[in-house]
């Protein structure tokens, strides 16, 4: 029950895009049509769901102060948390490499349409952000961390697909010239974020 509530919360209340503005770069750049948006959203969800539990285990069994005791009593005073950024990003970068190879093999057309943004998932702040929030919130077990990663990924997917759908319709509207493209995208995102804020009171 707690897990389900965590998933729902991370999709709607703590939405990566609308509450924390994470993963904005690819969010703005790849949201021109729904199909590519779904592909990228799925890739981000996949990477988040896999990297969060791994980083959780590393954090709780290797990096935190005094958790290396399973190696022996001598390690009780070791604190490796300074290296957490380096380790997290290394794990993420290698998983992105994996996803890139999978997508290239099974869906070359998606691979081509995502272009440079597929390797750039490695520097998608939503993913590193997920790991850093996990570090900050101190989840009780691996299951919770995985649920959080999955929920955040789905939240990001919903956000980018929603924006892509709106932008497809925007083609037909008359927008002041200086606001076209990037400007109106920002304002649409702001309106969507205000919409998502209505979830913030919900307690499940």
């Amino acid at each position, binding site marked *: 029950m707690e897990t389900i509530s965590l998933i729902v919360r991370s999709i709607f209340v703590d939405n990566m895009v609308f509450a924390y503005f994470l993963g904005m770069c690819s969010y703005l750049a790849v949201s021109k049509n729904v199909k590519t948006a779904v592909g990228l959203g799925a890739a981000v969800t996949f990477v988040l769901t896999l990297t969060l539990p791994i980083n959780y285990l590393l954090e709780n069994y290797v990096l935190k102060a005094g958790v290396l005791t399973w190696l022996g009593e001598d390690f009780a005073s070791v604190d490796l948390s300074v290296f957490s950024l380096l380790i997290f990003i290394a794990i993420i970068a290698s998983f992105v490499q994996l996803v890139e190879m999978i997508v290239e093999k099974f869906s070359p057309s998606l691979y081509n349409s995502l272009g440079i943004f597929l390797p750039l998932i490695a*520097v998608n702040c939503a993913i590193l952000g997920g790991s850093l929030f996990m570090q900050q919130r101190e989840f009780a077990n691996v299951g919770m961390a995985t649920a959080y990663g999955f929920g955040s990924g789905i939240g990001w997917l919903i956000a980018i697909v929603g924006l892509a759908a709106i932008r497809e319709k925007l083609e037909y509207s008359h927008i002041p010239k200086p606001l076209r493209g990037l400007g109106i995208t920002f304002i649409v995102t702001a309106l969507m974020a205000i919409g998502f804020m209505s979830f913030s009171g919900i307690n499940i």
Partner: protein
Amino acid sequence: MALSAKAKQALLGPLNKNNPVLVQVLGICSALAVTSKLEPSLVMAIAVTIVTAFANVIISLLRKTIPNRIRIIVQLVVVAALVTIVSEVLKAFAYDVNKQLSVFVGLIVTNCILMGRLEAFALGNGPWPSFLDGIGNGLGYGWILVVVGFFRELLGSGTLLGIQVVPEVFYNMGYENNGLMILPPMALFLVGIIIWIQRSKYKDLQEATN
């Protein structure tokens, strides 16, 4: 010290017509998330400028020795090391601000400005122009942060850097702080408006389609 035309372009271009946030669409995430007050915006701007400049220099020095295939990982390691240093310095000297910025200091690692500039500039240019390019882009990112932070703090809390600037008389006459400005979506609106102003000034930046 006189700067050559190219160096000047590298330093000043990003402040305006080639702005990382407004034109290159890089580094949006942190530009929006930390700007609810002026102080964290300033700290973030300085931190990003320093990291971008030094990462540019290091990668530019290494550019002939890095094999092309693993360059992203090398770049990430260099950037992550620099960010770790900045984050430790902040923890030591500005603990409160560090608390406010929370995960966003760590997220400088994935700030697209860094990767974008490393890929686009430092890999093809010498250390000195790369340094200027890093400073220029950091400042170009910084002024957006400061402008957005300024308006959000002024209109949202009536303070600047924590000091009350809206006089008490205004409140007595019925002026209220606009609580909406503190909420995250307002940063998007403000950046949208800055883009609008900039693009009505420079017509060649306007996009043909939506």
